[in-house]
């Protein structure tokens, strides 16, 4: 029997996919871009590195501060003597409440000592009295303000990054497009082959700017909210401290 064979054929028109992928394109675009564009990219990279560093640092700090504040409050509410709490403070130094407490305790001690009492511990002297509850309040306020400053330290850089980097990227893009149009003028050709590389190169800068800005916006809002929570916690603690002092030393 005569065998039969037949072929069926299907063709796919392949979209022009470069074998090297996008990654090598990015590298090539960066390498071929103008010095201004490269400088812009460098600045954006620095902003991104620093803002991410600050983000990691603050997240880590806030995490430790939150944990130690919780431990400190446990100790503070269980203890009857301020000196016991003061002894714990050294191990819980990251918590902002510790700063507030130390300031209040120092002010209270100073007032009691000035009054002629022998020690700072409330039960140690039979009837120690403090002069001014307002002075104690002011000391607590000072400490709170300082602690908030410490918590907010470097966070504004994230806001700066979030607002500036898109503009820096836009500057790089505009500069690159100026160059692209300049090359159109020089070659007197409007073909896509002349314009496209310049515009692709220019758009890298905007992408880099957004890459730096978007996480910065998110983490700025998150960290600012955490600072607000800590401030509320410190206010609450200050009032609690004032109440205890007023109850025991007036």
């Amino acid at each position, binding site marked *: 029997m005569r065998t039969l064979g037949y072929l069926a054929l*299907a063709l796919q028109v392949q979209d022009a996919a470069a074998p090297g992928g*996008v*990654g090598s394109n*990015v590298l090539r675009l960066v390498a071929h871009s103008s010095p201004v564009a490269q400088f812009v990219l460098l600045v954006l990279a620095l902003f991104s590195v620093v803002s991410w560093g600050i983000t990691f640092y603050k997240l880590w700090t806030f995490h430790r501060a939150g944990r130690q504040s919780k431990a400190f409050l446990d100790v503070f509410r269980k203890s009857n003597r301020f000196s016991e709490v003061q002894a714990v403070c050294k191990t819980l130094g990251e918590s902002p409440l510790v700063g507030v407490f130390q300031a209040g305790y120092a002010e209270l001690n100073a007032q009691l000592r000035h009054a002629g009492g022998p020690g700072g511990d409330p039960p140690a002297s039979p009837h120690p009295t403090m002069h001014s509850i307002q002075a104690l309040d002011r000391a607590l306020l000072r400490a709170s303000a300082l602690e908030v400053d*410490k918590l907010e330290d470097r966070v504004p850089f994230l806001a700066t990054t979030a607002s500036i980097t898109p503009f820096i990227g836009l500057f790089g893009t505009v500069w690159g497009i100026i160059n692209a149009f300049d090359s159109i003028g020089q070659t007197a050709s409007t073909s896509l082959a002349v314009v496209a590389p310049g515009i692709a190169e220019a758009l890298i800068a905007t992408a880099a700017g957004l890459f730096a800005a978007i996480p910065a916006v998110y983490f700025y809002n998150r960290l600012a909210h955490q600072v607000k929570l800590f401030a509320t916690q410190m206010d609450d603690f200050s009032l609690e401290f004032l109440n205890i002092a007023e109850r025991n030393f007036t």
Partner: protein
Amino acid sequence: MEAVTAVLIDRETGRRRLGPMLGGSLALHVVLFAALVFGPGRWLTATVSRAPRVVMSISLGGVPGPANGGANPLGGRPVQRVATAAETRRQPRLAPAAKTRMSVPVPSPKAPAKPKPSRAPAPEVKSAPEGATGRVPTAGPEEQFGSSFADTGVSGLGLGLSTGGAGAGGALDVGSFCCPDYLAIMVRRIKENWNYRQGIAATTVMRFTIQRNGRITDVAVEQSAGYVLDLAAERALLMLRQLPPLPAAYSNSTLTVYLRFDYQR
């Protein structure tokens, strides 16, 4: 110094450990950039469906016959084309007729007289021939047996695709691909190296890419029919390795082909 201020100053000058975090951030960026540059490009680009987009399918069936280049009765129609200007100009100019003197033919008196046609008597019709009785006699040119040309208005393919000769069941669906004659060459060259008689009926689909210069690359089995049969199909492609360059009318840089090898018993 006041006690509270001392406490506050002490709190102010706490330890800051931003440096290690900046180092970590820098390392993260370096890793990210390296992934961007050296990682596979498909992380960044949209995923292109790998299903073959069929733009044409050609199946050649039937007994392999003489390769006659696709000639068929309708393919023999004359083709008219507009002559180019150069050809038109090259037409030889007709020489004007030689001038002759006007003369009046005078009959020579010695010319022999024309023989008078002899009128033979017409044969006498006795009766109509057998089978012609009762019919109206036909008029017009005589009927003859033989082939004649009939214009049916059907446009022939004229593509020279019948590499298998006049086999039955041939089908051609040309999509947007510009140059079917290139495919015909490709199929013919592949079939030269392919032995479809493997004693079993099965189908292997091979995928390969034709580069601009005609080189066959990226030969891969798309649908397997068993190792030996895949090998036979792959061998056909690998032995061929070089095709004519892609036609100029085809604009893409490469052409990816999904080719079905149907083995039949």
